[in-house]
């Protein structure tokens, strides 16, 4: 059972090396290893569901002296999401990058990013988390700059500097915790950490660093240009997975490791920032001229919803009510992951076929690229939070928890944010439904359209209709 833990890190890393050494067969290698990683993620989810949280002590050294890999329901679900999204995006990328030389550069970095994501989710050690954060940051930056265009390189450079700043702040927190508690193991730390200046300062520093990386308003400034100028499959995983990895760490720290230390005031602060993200991100998405920028600002907004949960979760007593709300949070994160990845892939198709992604000039798209438009619409349904998407269930829990704890402000924010989301999504569709002749050569490639469609379908239908399993898994895997 714990073999899956090793496989999830070793498989993509080995594949990255092989893709580097054997560029000719790299595409096949990626697809093959993608399947294997997905299988491992499923195996891990199965294991966690039946046996509860799993851990593996690397090198056979007890955690503390050595490093432990850990997985519970939350990380297992997210790992499966990562596997599915990365796999779909890999299939897409194999068609998106037309030249062999492009693919030769792309695949190793892509697999290194995959390694970083998996390693981050599995890591049970504070310093190891720092290393995975850096691996994630550098691979994401390298991929974001891949097009070599001036705007992309500029955005990637800013992304890198912000990411480094974030990691440094995280590392200071780690150092402080080591000074105070002489351990780097998360599980040990959870048991020994006590309220006090050390824990507060460490949490503040680490959270600050992670908020930079997860682009919470007003620290989001770097995200739209970076996500808006990267190649489509890269944008997809940056928006869907990479920012969420940092968010996952915030969640872990606040709800697990420092559960006894965090205060409602601090959580309210996160909530306020989340609200700012929802409103500002949605508004900017509505004003965006380009599809990719729209999608990037939408990511800013959608991350805001996740942070609205913090004041709610802290106001709920530990127990079933909090678990249900936590499930809602996970559901939102999952749906956004699938939907946003699908959206970026679909936008990539539009951009490649028409040579631009100006929203004003999409007239007639629905006739020439019906499947792509459909994928965008499905993603939109999930982003707005309409049924039957998983977002709907997530937002239901968000509003429900807010009402139950009497925090009406977040209800208003959610309502306004959702309506703004509807406005920006239907702004696209309004143009797409226009009956102007579509001037561009629009031959869709199945390897590009189907990944986008399947991802958005997962967000809109599968997660919505099979959503109850998410709660079960979280409960069984704790």
């Amino acid at each position, binding site marked *: 059972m714990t073999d899956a833990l090793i496989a999830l890190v070793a498989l993509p890393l080995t594949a990255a090396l092989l893709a580097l050494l054997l560029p000719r067969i790299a595409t096949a290698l990626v697809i093959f290893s993608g399947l294997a990683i997905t299988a491992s993620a499923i195996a891990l989810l199965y294991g966690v569901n039946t046996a509860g949280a799993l851990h593996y002590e690397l090198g056979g050294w007890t955690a503390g002296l050595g490093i432990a890999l850990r997985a519970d329901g939350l990380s297992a679900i997210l790992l499966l999401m990562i596997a599915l999204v990365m796999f779909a995006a890999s299939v897409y990328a194999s068609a998106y990058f037309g030249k062999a030389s492009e693919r030769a550069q792309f695949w190793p970095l892509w697999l290194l990013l995959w390694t970083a994501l998996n390693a981050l989710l599995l890591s049970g050690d504070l310093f190891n988390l720092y290393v995975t954060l850096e691996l994630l940051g550098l691979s994401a930056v390298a991929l974001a700059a891949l097009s070599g265009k001036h705007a992309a390189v500029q955005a990637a450079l800013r992304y890198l500097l912000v990411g480094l700043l974030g990691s440094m702040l995280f590392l200071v927190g780690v150092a402080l915790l080591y000074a105070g508690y002489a351990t780097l193991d998360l599980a040990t730390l959870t048991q020994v950490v006590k309220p006090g200046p050390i824990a507060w300062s460490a949490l503040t520093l680490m959270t600050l660093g992670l908020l930079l990386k997860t682009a919470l308003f007003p620290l989001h400034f770097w995200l739209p240009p970076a996500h808006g100028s990267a190649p489509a499959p890269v944008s997809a995983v940056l928006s869907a997975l990479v920012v969420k990895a940092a968010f996952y760490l915030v969640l872990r720290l606040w709800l697990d490791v420092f559960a006894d230390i965090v205060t409602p005031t601090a959580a309210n602060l996160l909530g306020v920032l989340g609200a700012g993200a929802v409103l500002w991100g949605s508004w900017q998405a509505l004003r965006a001229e380009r599809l990719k920028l729209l999608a990037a600002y939408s990511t800013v907004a959608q991350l805001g919803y996740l942070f609205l949960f913090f004041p709610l979760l802290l106001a709920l007593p530990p127990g079933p009510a909090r678990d*249900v709300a936590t499930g809602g949070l996970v559901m939102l994160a999952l749906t956004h992951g699938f939907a946003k990845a699908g959206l970026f892939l679909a936008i990539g198709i539009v951009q490649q076929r028409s040579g631009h992604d100006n929203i004003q000039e999409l007239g007639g798209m629905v*006739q020439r690229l019906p499947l792509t438009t459909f994928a965008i619409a499905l993603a939109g349904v999930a982003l707005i939070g309409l*049924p039957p998407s998983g977002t709907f269930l997530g937002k239901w829990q968000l509003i429900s928890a807010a009402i139950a704890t009497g925090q009406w402000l977040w209800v208003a924010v959610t309502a306004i944010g959702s309506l703004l989301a509807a406005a920006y999504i239907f702004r696209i*569709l309004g143009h797409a439904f226009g009956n102007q002749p579509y001037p561009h050569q629009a031959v869709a490639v199945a390897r590009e359209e189907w990944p986008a469609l399947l991802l958005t379908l997962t967000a809109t239908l599968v997660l919505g209709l099979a959503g109850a399993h998410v709660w079960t898994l979280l409960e069984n895997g704790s």
Partner: protein
Amino acid sequence: MNSATSLPLLVILSSLLPGLVIFFLPEGSHRLRTTLNLAGAFVKIFLVGVLIWGVFHGQSYETRWALAPGLDLVLHADKLSLLFVSLSSVLWLVTTIYAIGYLETSPHRSRFFGFFSLCVSATVGLALAGNLFTFVIFYELLTLATYPLVAHRGTPEAIRGARIYLTYTLSGGMLLLIGTVWLYAIVGQTSFVEGGVLSGLSSEYHTQLILIFALLIAGLGVKAALVPLHGWLPEAMVAPAPVSALLHAVAVVKAGAFGIVRVVYDVYGVTFASELGVLMALGIAAGITIVYGSVKALFQDSLKKRLAYSTVSQVSYIALGTAILGPIGTIGGIVHLVHQGIMKITLFFAAGNYAETLGIHKVSEMNGVGRRMPGTTLAFSIAALGMIGIPPVAGFISKWYLGLGAVEAGMAGWVLPVLILSSLLNAGYFLPILYRAWFRTPAAVWPDEHIPAARFETHGALLWPPIITAVLALAAGLFAAAPYSPLEWASLIAQREYGL
């Protein structure tokens, strides 16, 4: 899965699956698309028949599927849902036939019929919803499925109309959602139960319950076009005629009205709602809407807009009926759900025929059209007379029960004047049309005649649907006392609600 747990789902799938297949059909495969459409419609009617038979014999049908802890998707067949389901499945069949004729030459038919089927699936789901959570899901799905239909023509006006439609309905959906979540936060998951589920709550919750009621009714009122939430309806007239017919008679507007009925009877309970004092507010809103809609209709020269404002007015009869405490008023409201649907769809079919055959869009262009298109105009006349409330057409029955119910409930003081005023106004905007159509001399040339009179005055697929629905409207009035008639059904529902 046995029939008791799968039948409600199958009713939805009978239109959903053909719809999904139709999306992928090439534009040219006309025959296959038509076959699928009609087969779906007939299967649906058959399944609904089975449901009706079963429910009458005490069988219980329920599909239940957990979506999240404490949130079940429940499809449940009770008498009220069956009333709405049978209305929508019959009218869907008729509208499909009409749409096949209407859109014969226009582009993007696969897309159109795909969304058309989704729209009906959502309506049926909404009718079968066994709790408020499920209702909200289908309510939003209905919004989604109708957007592409309103925007179908792709002209700037169509896109604009669709945007306005969406702005209203999504905002309404959000209010409904918040109200529903709030209610769930207080009472947890509750099914629709005749007589309501809230009367047992202690009085400390009453203020909250009033606020929730306001949210729910505001959310539903957008689709039911309660003044001042009706602004989208005239704008959505840019849609093709079959869509307008569906929107006004079966799907959107009726979904809102049906929701109001559900909330009042099966969530709050009419007695409890009356105690809370919210019924009166609802009644007044409905009364204002009835008069306002009629007055606005009086001044529209565009035929479709006149019909649209007529809808605003007529649908609020249903809300008015629910606001009247007492079985007779309830019967009037519920039966109007069906009657208004049959009559209004007839009117829209006829209006579509005028536009499609002769290019007539305005009342002022209708001089003498009765001679050129007697069948259509006859159907139009029957429905219009019904709307005014002239016996023996169905509309008379509704108004009669509403009036009687108001007297019984002691609300005659303001309900009767509203009814009389509105009937006069109805006459004021319908009778001139009938006069023009039958008695004025026709113009030398029609505005844009492009279907020449051949065997019939227009295509058979366009002519027969309004005639069928007109006959239904007549029959619903003439045979109101017969078993299985809408009136009988409404009476049964009312009896259960009041525990008679």
